[in-house]
């Protein structure tokens, strides 16, 4: 079995577990929704909400990421399956890739729904000014989503694997993950601000942020795949 095939097996397995337990749809999604609503409550000041909406989407995504990662590794450690994978001689890179892919799929679904929620709750709308009208903005938005998601999934999987199976991993994970994803949080917020035109941002400004996100995703993707072996190994 090539590394790639095994990674696909693992991703398929993770997604199947998710389909069985319906945790994302039934619980994470409402959680993210509630997070956004509670932000809206806590920040209920004049004119504040619409300007900070893109930041809130990504904050909600980040917190959902933490929950998803924890869940993704708790299915591995609940009954010692991670150990079993290691004994089975499964390539650590395959484990990393597989779990990151499954995580990315779940995150992407979540983000798209959150974006819709923001349109509804916060009254955001795609920027339609400029030469090509809304087309460019939509392209920017999609690229941002994809690259940010890959970065988040890579970081989450890396640190999730590190913390997995230790006492207190539910608290260690956020401590490690949040500082690491801060650049993604910032970059993605700025890019989305450009796409929806918050505070006069224009679409063209967004691309440099997408570049940052892409670099981040590639760096953590490759670094994570290489580092994962030593991390989960004794």
């Amino acid at each position, binding site marked *: 079995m090539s590394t790639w095939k095994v990674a696909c097996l693992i991703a398929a397995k993770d997604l199947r577990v998710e389909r069985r337990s319906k945790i994302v749809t039934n619980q994470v999604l409402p959680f993210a929704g509630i997070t956004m609503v509670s932000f809206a409550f806590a920040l209920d000041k004049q004119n504040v909400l619409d300007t900070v909406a893109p930041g809130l989407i990504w904050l909600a995504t980040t917190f959902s990421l933490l929950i998803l990662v924890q869940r993704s590794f708790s299915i591995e450690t609940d009954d010692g399956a991670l150990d*079993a994978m290691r004994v089975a001689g499964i390539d650590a890179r395959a484990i990393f890739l597989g779990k990151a892919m499954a995580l990315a799929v779940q995150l992407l679904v979540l983000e798209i729904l959150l974006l819709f929620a923001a349109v509804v709750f916060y009254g955001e709308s795609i920027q339609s000014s400029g030469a090509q009208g809304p087309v460019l903005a939509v392209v920017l938005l999609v690229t941002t989503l994809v690259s940010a998601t890959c970065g988040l999934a890579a970081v989450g999987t890396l640190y999730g694997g590190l913390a997995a199976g230790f006492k207190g991993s539910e608290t260690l994970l956020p401590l490690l993950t949040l500082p690491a994803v801060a650049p993604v949080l910032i970059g993605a917020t700025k890019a989305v601000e450009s796409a929806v035109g918050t505070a006069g941002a224009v679409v063209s400004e967004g691309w440099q942020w997408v570049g940052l996100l892409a670099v981040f995703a590639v760096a953590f993707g490759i670094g994570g795949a290489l580092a994962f072996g030593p991390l989960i190994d004794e």
Partner: protein
Amino acid sequence: MSPAPSPSSATVDGPVIVLDDVVAVLGQFPALAGAFLTVERGEIVLLRGPNGAGKTTLLRLCAGLLPVERGTATILGFDLSTQRELVRPHVGLLGHQNGLYLDLSVRENVNFWGRTVGASTDEIHAAMARMGVAERLADIPCRKLSAGQKRRTSLACLVARRAQVWLLDEPHAGLDATGRDELDATLAQAAGSGATILVASHELERAGNLATRSVEVIAGQVTALGDKK
């Protein structure tokens, strides 16, 4: 198993497991404090000893889950300290935990573990049938199984893996009478076709009948050569 050396290439001459003054440390505690053990191909070796003696530690070390602190451990001719990656594809471990995905059904679990090593659908079905989880239980999520049924599923995953070295930590615990007989038959057959088996157990009669040799682990030390039968 294509990227890893194929089983036949690992079929070296000489003993399959050689531990020479091996020390393994858990936290600060030397749970294995000088183990000497040589196991030939096809042997079934029983590890016995009081609670906390270091049996589990010994098995986990052989599976490459614990680092070798001192001494040399060689499995199938590979050195455990440096060539752990090469050892693992040939080793199967049944630990105290079952290593199942509790939300997946029995069939999906065995399928997953089997397919990662390239087992065919038939082999997978045979493994499930062997441990008696092929019929009614096959489509029940593992979370709902009884303790013994979980253990059987875990054993089926192990059988599907076709390992060369089997490391079993109290495999009989939780199995009913039929299950024990099936397990013993499976192990005897595997050993007959060239697998090497280490069994840690407190059920001395049951496991003693099965084993070809029995070795005592006391306070982290394995010194006796074991009683040949």
